[in-house]
């Protein structure tokens, strides 16, 4: 009962505009990149924070609701809090920028990328999170990235494995080549 009341209170606050998702970033990323974006860019649930499904406010436990309340009071950077309705990227924004700065950036969402730590790459695909935001790709999905950038990064990263595969294929083909030539000579001799 208490949990339901909490959830209702948070949903009411959301409806009043006190604690809603920030679609400006999503809109900017979509317009700039031309790629389809959804709330899963920053949120746990792809349909956003409001609702009763997993990762949405209505599904949170009492403890998670408490954490959410604290996270929403984190106006300054460096709080170290993990909001249960945000994913790793959303929480990175919260921790690095704080709510006040995020609110300020809503007016100029193009500045979000440069406000994030330059070296931060949450999914480890070699493309910084800020750049992924600009490219309209997911900062937490290593398979999602601007194709050419991913190709270049992975080529550098897997260079040794690729070189080994080239060597193995070449040696295998060299062996096969000689085996076929030997077989050809043998059939010629028999004839």
């Amino acid at each position, binding site marked *: 009962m208490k949990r339901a009341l909490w959830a209702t209170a948070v949903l009411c606050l959301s409806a009043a505009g006190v604690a809603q998702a920030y679609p400006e970033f999503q809109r900017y990323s979509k317009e700039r990149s031309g*790629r*389809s*974006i*959804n709330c*899963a860019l920053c949120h746990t649930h*792809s*349909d956003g924070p409001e609702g009763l*499904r997993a990762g949405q406010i209505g599904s949170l436990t009492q403890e998670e609701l408490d954490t959410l309340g604290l996270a929403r009071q984190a106006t300054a950077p460096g709080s170290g809090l993990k909001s249960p309705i945000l994913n790793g990227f959303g929480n990175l924004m919260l921790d690095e920028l704080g709510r006040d700065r995020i609110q300020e950036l809503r007016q100029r969402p193009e500045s979000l990328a440069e406000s994030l730590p330059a070296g931060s790459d949450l999914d480890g695909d070699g493309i910084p999170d800020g750049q992924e935001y600009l490219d*309209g*790709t*997911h900062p937490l*999905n290593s*398979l*999602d*990235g*601007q*194709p050419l950038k*991913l*190709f270049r990064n*992975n*080529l550098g990263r*897997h260079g040794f*494995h*690729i070189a080994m*595969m*080239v060597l193995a*294929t*070449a040696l*295998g*083909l060299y062996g*096969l*080549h000689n085996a*076929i*030539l030997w*077989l*050809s000579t043998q*059939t*010629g001799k028999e*004839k």
Partner: protein
Amino acid sequence: MRPDWLRRGLDYLSERLPVQKMSFESLVTKKVVPVHRMSWAYYMGGLALLFFLIQLVTGVFLLFYYQPTVSDAHASVEYITYYVNSGFLVRNLHTWSSSCMILCLMVHALTTFAMKAFARPREVTWLTGSMLLALTFAFGFTGYLLPWHQIAVNATKVVLQSIEEAGRYLPGALSGLPTYVKEIIQGEASVGQATLSRFYALHVVILPLLFFGVLGLHLLCVQLHGMSQGTDTPARRSEKFFPIFMLKDFWLWGVAFLVVFVLAYCLPFESFYPYPLFEPYDSLGSTPDGIKPEWYFYFIYYPLELLPFWVVMLGQTLGGAALFMTPWIFKNTSRKVLGIIATLVSAYLIVITIFGHDIYEMFKGGGA
């Protein structure tokens, strides 16, 4: 005493499948390959076979982990991708090689057509080749659903819906047939567990068995008849199939394998699409933008978006019939005319595949 129709039937078959000619000499030592400006086309069938073999091997590895249930399918694919050793590579090899196989088969079909390699006595070779092309598309369609993500389920729904729509244009009792076909494929009221089970069975058992049978007959025909001349005047030069052509073929296989390996290792196929399309399918959630089939179905998808349904259905039916009836329809057509037709078809396929979305935007606007 054999009846006349049976005798004629057997004569027809023995000309198309001259198994009595089969010997070590005819298949290996005496077999030659003409050398001319279109000789590169002789390698396309072999390349398609290589990509099929890659799919076979990677498909078996994927089977070890994939769970064909609506609750676990997406999670098992995620598990393969992120937790199984080299799972990402195997899965991406499977995806890239399927696209490469379809590309090679399309080029193979078009060049075979342009070179008139379907002419008597190679009708059975063409027919089995056309069946392999159709089976490959069926592989693509059934495999697309298996990861059970947003684009997979929604695109399958769109295709099944268009099958049902065809009923509106059929007369009388036939109008119910497409709905019946759709229900058989779907297995339940909407795309769900029954559909996934059917597509899985088709993809991993039924289609491979059919493919092996038809491929065996196709390869037998190719071996029995040898390489077609390919040009109006006999080539001035030829090379021995064994070992010269075979060696070149294997080296090309090596290069093609390395190309697809590097692509699979460095370029996730999914990176070409927006990430919301690869989220687990959620029947209660919103449908993301950009639902469309794989690129090799664009040649029919974009016309469906742009033109009246009956026009596309008619075109598709005539095109399909023409594909299978090619040896008889184009029996007396010159290679020059065949070359022009093949070029036009190629141009259409390239333009609609690369610029289909732009063309759609130009005429209809909004998101495709």
